[in-house]
């Protein structure tokens, strides 16, 4: 649906986007991750046609963005960074105006209007001026505007900024359900959001793609160690000598007389929970808590971005 080939964007001397290539298919929800200034917004603006790439090919639904600009714009719903809106319009006027501008009229506009009002939860602010809305409402009006013409492709630049946790979940579910038969690209700083919503992830840094895969694959690739957090009571000496005998890396915290929390690291593919459990039983110690910590996307992200 969307394909980028060797896309470069140069601002005076620096490359904001430095040879980016990727493909997104229908039904994909692609998460765009990267530190501030990594080139996320620039890449998204190139896809929407707001700016043109210095070199490289961008094609959307099989059409080149430079030659079929107008047709492509009809397919895309774009929510820019900082969510710009006309402050002097009422929400209803704004949505109707934008809907018509994007080629939605009559009955179709009416049904789309009802759909976005219901799904973006803006029913109670329809007759308020946009300039007087709170940040959360503004964000939802922006999202509603993006969806008003039923676009096949959604490009959302930080769609959940300024929402409260309950709203974030609602918007996340909305994006998920929309993404089933559409193509979605969203950028965000909130990593759990990507894990919850996206089917694929692109991590970009300094204009270059650093990693691109599904979230679970990324975790597998970048999981360097398997860590177990263990809280036990009684006979700690016996347990420590067992750890030393096995040559595992371990550390201890909060040691109070006969109770302590251990953190033990294994190579990624090994799982020693069973043997640890039986050893503790044998030592007549008591397990208060045992927990295997998973590598989160956050760990992967930090690892990739801070590599150099």
């Amino acid at each position, binding site marked *: 649906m969307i394909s980028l080939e060797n896309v470069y964007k140069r*601002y005076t001397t620096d490359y904001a986007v430095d040879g980016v290539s990727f493909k997104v298919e229908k039904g994909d929800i692609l998460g765009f991750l990267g530190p501030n200034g990594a080139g996320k917004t620039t890449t998204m*603006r190139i896809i*929407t*046609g*707001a*700016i*043109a790439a210095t070199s490289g090919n961008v094609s959307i639904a099989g059409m080149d963005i430079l030659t079929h600009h*107008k047709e492509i*714009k*009809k397919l*895309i719903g*774009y929510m*820019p*960074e*900082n969510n*710009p*809106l*006309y*402050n*002097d*319009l009422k929400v209803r006027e704004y949505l109707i*105006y*934008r809907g*018509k*501008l*994007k*080629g939605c009229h009559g009955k179709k506009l009416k049904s789309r209007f009802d759909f976005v009002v219901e799904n973006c939860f803006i029913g109670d602010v329809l007759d308020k001026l946009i300039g007087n809305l709170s940040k959360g409402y503004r964000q939802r009006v922006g999202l509603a*505007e993006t969806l008003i013409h039923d676009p096949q492709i959604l490009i959302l630049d930080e769609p959940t900024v300024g929402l409260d946790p309950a709203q974030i979940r609602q918007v996340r579910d909305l994006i998920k359900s929309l993404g089933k038969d559409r193509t979605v690209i969203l950028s965000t700083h909130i990593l759990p959001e990507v894990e919850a919503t996206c089917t694929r992830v692109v991590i970009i840094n300094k204009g270059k793609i650093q990693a691109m895969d599904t979230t679970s694959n990324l975790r597998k690739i970048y999981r360097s160690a398997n860590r177990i957090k263990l809280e036990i009571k009684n006979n700690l000496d016996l347990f420590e000598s067992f750890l030393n005998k096995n040559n595992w890396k371990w550390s201890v915290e909060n040691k109070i007389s006969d109770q302590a929390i251990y953190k033990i690291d294994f190579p990624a593919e090994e799982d020693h929970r069973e043997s640890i459990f039986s050893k503790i039983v044998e030592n007549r110690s008591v397990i208060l808590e045992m927990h295997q910590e998973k590598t989160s996307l956050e760990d992967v992200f930090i690892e990739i971005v801070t590599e150099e």
Partner: protein
Amino acid sequence: MRNIFLMTIRDLKTYFMSITGYVILSIFLLIYGYVFWFLVSIYSSPQYNLNEPITNFFFGSFYYWFVMLIIPPILTMRSIAEERKTGTLELLITAPVSEMQIIVAKFLSSFIFYAFMWIITLFYFFLISKNMPLEWLNIINGYLGTFLAGSVFISLGILSSTISRNQIVAAIVSFGFGLLIFSASFVSYLINYASIKPFMEYINIMDNTMKFSQGIFDTRPVIYFISLTIGFLFISVKILDSQRWR
């Protein structure tokens, strides 16, 4: 066409629903009310025996040119610059409308507001029509000249607004360049070279506009003003388009 109409209506709403629009309108009517009162006083006083039609002064006084040079920059300074500053320009550019449609809509909304302001002053003529012989064709011709010359300055204002990010800068640039192309008219009085003089006379904005108020309808100034307007708008479209490539 539909898109241009939609965007024009939306921008017209900003003029009519914001305080700026009413401030411009009131100040204009205040100035022109004074001009009119002054003219009527002179014409009714036995001291001055004026034979010239009132349109010569109504569409040709110092105030006329003051308003003509000041109002278009203020009307147009917001158009693109403000949208760029707030980021809504990005919404327009990524909507299925062309740069040409955006610029034309911006021009039309400013022009319609400008024309609306002037059309209100038609009321003045109705007021005196019972007591003073009026040449209505002259008056209509005077308005035509006003609209044509105004469209030149409005399109120049749109161009300045396309270039700048700040609306104050846009207003200053368009006022400055407006004043310059207006003043360039006067060079024709200094030049005596037979080869350039006709050309300089042709591009003289002031004299060309005055012809309309004197009741002379000539297609040459019409074409000149319209082509200047289209020229400025065309450059604006190209600049707006080129900004995607920066």
